[in-house]
């Protein structure tokens, strides 16, 4: 295998036998998976499958009860979440999570600033002009340029979701984790969001947690299916769609 081919297939994130229990409740059991650099990997499963728990392990929101997580060949198990962010793992939240009283632009600017200046109490932040310029680029990318001076809490739901993705992109992540980015969106907003994700995925590694299988079939390179906290199946969209176990899980409950 040549060096370039090796690079293309490189694994950016790997979990080895991770599990998470909350008290006696086993939310996630023994998941081993690999995520390739530059690919879009979707994690799907019915409600309560453990998708969000797995997602939270991947972004460092809490440590696994057992097993280990490896990012870029480094064991990152148990590191605090802000360290995950410094390494280049950015996430969006399932429930919209922005800085409500700050302007749209300041939301993104604060996201950018985390990589440059976290404890400087003296220099005026307006001097960090490159952050403001970069914030404006990101505002344009996620389609919020018009709303840049508005407080984030006054944005429509879909716009807040877009803002969140803009904030996640602010840290120039090597890995972008999106937790149900279309939750609660109108069909039109959903389409806009999926287009945005496709655009972003051209240049980045994306891991997407989604409840609706239909949404991710078209855009994913690989799909993991979780069920009752276990890894039920994994493969290309084609393979997953034809998998008997997956069909059984999604059967009976109408696909939304």
């Amino acid at each position, binding site marked *: 295998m040549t060096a370039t081919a090796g690079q293309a297939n490189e694994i950016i994130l790997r979990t080895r036998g991770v599990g998470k229990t909350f008290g006696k409740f086993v939310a996630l059991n023994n998941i081993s998976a690999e995520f390739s650099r530059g690919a879009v990997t979707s994690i799907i499963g019915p409600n309560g499958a453990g998708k969000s728990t797995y997602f939270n392990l991947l972004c460092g929101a809490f440590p696994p009860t057992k097993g280990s997580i490896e990012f870029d060949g480094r064991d990152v198990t148990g590191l605090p979440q802000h360290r995950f*962010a410094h390494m280049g793992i950015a996430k969006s939240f399932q429930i919209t*999570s*922005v*800085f409500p009283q*700050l302007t749209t632009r*300041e939301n993104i600017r604060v996201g950018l600033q985390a990589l440059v200046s976290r404890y400087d109490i003296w220099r*005026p932040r307006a001097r960090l002009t490159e952050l*403001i310029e970069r914030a404006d680029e990101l505002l344009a990318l996620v389609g919020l340029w018009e709303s840049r001076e508005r407080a984030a809490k006054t944005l429509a739901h879909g716009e807040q979701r877009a803002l969140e993705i803009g904030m996640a992109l602010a840290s120039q992540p090597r890995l972008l984790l999106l937790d149900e980015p279309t939750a609660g969106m109108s069909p039109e907003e959903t389409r806009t969001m999926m287009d945005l994700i496709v655009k972003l995925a051209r240049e980045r590694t994306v891991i997407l947690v989604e409840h609706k299988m239909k949404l991710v079939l078209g855009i994913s390179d690989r799909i993991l299916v979780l069920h009752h906290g276990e890894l039920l199946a994994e493969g290309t969209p084609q393979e997953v769609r034809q998998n008997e176990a997956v069909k059984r899980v999604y059967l009976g409950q109408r696909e939304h």
Partner: protein
Amino acid sequence: MTETARSIKQSGVATGGWYQFVTRHRASIVAAVILVFPLVMPFTALAVNILIYGLYALGFNLVFGYLGLLSFGHAALFGTGAYLCGISIVHFGWPWYAAIAAGVAGGLLMALLIGVLAIRTRGIYFAMVTMALSQCVYYLFYQAVDLTGGENGLRGINVRTIDLFGLQIDFINPMIRYYVIAAFVIAAFFVMSRILASPFGAVIEAVRENEMRARASGYDVTLTRLLTFVLSGAFCGLAGALQALHLSIVPIEILHYETSGLVVMIALLGGMGTFFGPMIGAAVFLVLENVVSVWTVHWQLIVGGIFIACVLFFPAGIWGTLIARSRR
């Protein structure tokens, strides 16, 4: 600087109109008001009190309004600043500037100590833990009679003249005393304005707005909180030190939880999380106290009633309400 850069210079909070101008020159405006302030006050001692409590509230507001944590133990920071300044003069014969530095350092270190123990708690728990710890500080100073004078307070902080590079300034003269203290308060407001406009100032507000989001963006929320609390301690320590110089005595009541409660009232009255709120709150509260206590010994009843009415009808405080009106 680009137009964009200028518009977010001081704060990323959405605002408009005249407020932009006021925000840009906020520290200079405070300085100008402080300089003419004693001319409109009935007597200078009241004006000095307003300065000192305004500064105390400024430090408190950094934690309460900007960071979003309600501390009920700020008396410990204010009081430690006062005691350390007083002790340096009474027991060690330090010059006035070293005593002020000791007060600032005292407030800062006490904030570090309390902060380390309390900072992981939230909401009402943070208020309770800081209050409990500040009560510990109260008893500590109460018991250390040899150093602090215990129940009688620390007496004999006599600074008659202030030596400024060979220039002897008469600190007994009330007007001169006012302007000496005003110089420190104005400097503190400039420093605070700078901190709020700094990158760290943005982090403080981000942590208040959304802790989880701040963490996901790559900020260490706990450390940010602790540093902010320590900075607040330095401002409150300075206020305490100036209070010791002004009164020539540090009463033990300075560490009482009432002193913690007072600053909460001042910040709420003026407008939490606003730059001018603390000073306005201190002025309104102390003038009210002064005017009403001339009429009746039950002044607390009336001031309390006015305070309740303010909180009920203007929850954003005096300055906060003005800002909100301007945005409509």
